[in-house]
């Protein structure tokens, strides 16, 4: 760069000294080093600018929820909040368990058995997200007197997805069963979700 413009201007020193055998000048080295350092620095600055939009510490601190399920009677469900989203906790009646197990798993859109979706020894506790896997509405069926849909589980009023008693998708546009979050029983009656 310096050579081409330098010659036109009297008195501007054109750098021909400091040559080594390969034709790499000291100025080339400094140029590449400086631009390289600026590039690395510029990319490093992106890290805080991007990660500041990720969930902050207070949001992450709310990422697990403890729920006392002792008051949930068979045939009843409660809605809890997990990561600012509805969580359905439902104690199935023997009839509902039977209905869920009677279904041929291979005929399902998202094949899972009821046992896959509950914890051992607590097959009657169905804990799922209350978020329709179609576009995220809250399905009906957990509240008292709400429409449980044609399969007796949950029914999403937005676009008509119907879930069965194991909260598996049976009809409508949703692609997946209602998600079962990661959870564990910390005692017989307390569930820690997340």
């Amino acid at each position, binding site marked *: *760069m*310096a050579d081409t*413009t330098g010659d*036109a*201007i*009297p*008195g*501007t020193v054109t750098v021909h000294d400091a040559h080594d055998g390969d034709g790499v000048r000291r100025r080339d080295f400094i140029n590449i080093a*400086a631009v390289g350092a*600026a590039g690395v*620095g510029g990319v490093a600055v992106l*890290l*805080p*600018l991007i*990660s*500041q*939009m*990720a969930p*902050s*510490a*207070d*949001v992450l601190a709310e990422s697990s929820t403890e729920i006392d399920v002792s008051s949930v009677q068979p045939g009843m469900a409660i809605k809890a909040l997990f990561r600012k989203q509805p969580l359905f906790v439902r104690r199935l009646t023997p009839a509902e368990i039977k209905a869920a197990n009677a279904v041929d798993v291979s005929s399902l859109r998202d094949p899972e058995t009821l046992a896959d979706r509950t914890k051992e020894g607590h097959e009657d506790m169905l804990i799922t997200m209350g978020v329709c896997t179609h576009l995220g509405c809250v399905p009906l069926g957990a509240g008292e007197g709400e429409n449980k849909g044609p399969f007796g589980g949950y029914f999403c009023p937005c676009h008509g997805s119907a879930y069965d008693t194991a909260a598996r998708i049976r009809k409508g546009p949703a692609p997946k069963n209602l998600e079962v979050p990661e959870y564990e029983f910390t005692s017989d009656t307390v569930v820690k979700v997340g």
Partner: protein
Amino acid sequence: MSFPWAKHYEPVNPLMRYLDEKLPLPRLVYNAIGGGYPVPRNLNYMWNFGVLAGFCLVLQIVTGVVLAMHYAANAGVAFSSVEHIMRDVNWGWALRYAHANGASAFFAVIYLHIFRGFFYSSYKAPREMVWLIGVTIFLLMMATGFMGYVLPWGQMSFWGAKVITGLFGAIPVVGEPIQIWLLGGYAPDNAALNRFFSLHFLLPFVIAGAVILHIWALHIPGSSNPTGIEVKKESDTIPFHPYYTAKDGFGLGVFLILYCVMLFLLPNYLGHPDNYIEANPLSTPAHIVPEWYFWPFYAILRAFTSDFFFIPAKLMGVLAMFSAILLWFFLPWLDKGPVRSGHYRPLFRKFFWFGLIPAMAVLFYCGGAPAEEPFVMLSQLATAYYFLHFLVILPIVSMIERPDPLPYSITEAVLGEDKAAVLGENATPGV
């Protein structure tokens, strides 16, 4: 808008040629900060601060927009939302410190930029418009900086807002209604905080627009230089790129090292501990001072302690403080000397280094000191000199002083000789 020997933008790549036809943005950049802008070859490091100020503006806008994603402008939660940024948001501490120290850095480079203008008389024709827009940018920056400082809603924020809006209360008759109107209440509260946040977000973009006008106005006569003599011919200039992009790049590197020292090692050095206490309308902090970049003007405000003829002291202080900056608008016409650079103005130079600069230093120091003796008296002396310098000394000096001989051209100033000076129309017989 440029010298006849300025290089022309000639895109080689077909895509760039297509773009040049439809939207010649690369051409604009090339002519503004590329090879197409010829710049005096003798600029020293004082000419780095314009670019650094531009960098600071971008830095403040980027970090500010990010902080606004996490901040809540509500008097009930503003203080804790700032603590949320410091403790919970990923890298929030770094972004907030970068913004707070970025404001200090911005004012630091702007002050050096302005003092460059004072010493080299950059405000003189044909660059008066550049100067006027520059002073306007400075005023906008002060408003933006002040309103930003209110947002954390700490003790200093609250009392700063109260005191500064109180300045308007000094205006006779309409003062108090104006103050109440500005605050949307009788004291700073939610209404004030919300409007300050809104304006604090808006003004930087107004500044960005003014900066574009500032650069536009500058590029019509072209940059000034340390000799103060105008460019005569091609050998007086070099293209902005690569010469001044490299020089500015080096300056930016030095600036960033100093900035990072403040940001990572002394992040609260320029702040006030009281601002980590939530705003309390019932208790004023014992020692209330603004941020360091307002100190000289704050000292002028406090210098007026007794009524001045029929003008009450309170109003006089406010008038003096605003006049101290508004004065700069008249500088191109107060300084009548034909020679620009302080290097060739022996008398001007004496008053600059031994008058204006010490007075500003005293004002700066006293502005940060408590309102007691001897600081009040020192502020009064320095304030008196400050106005005397611009209103009396500078006009007289510029009329009576005999400048040192100027070099024939920038080329001669750099090389010690200019063949054109001997052979050209200015040739002295017998040389």
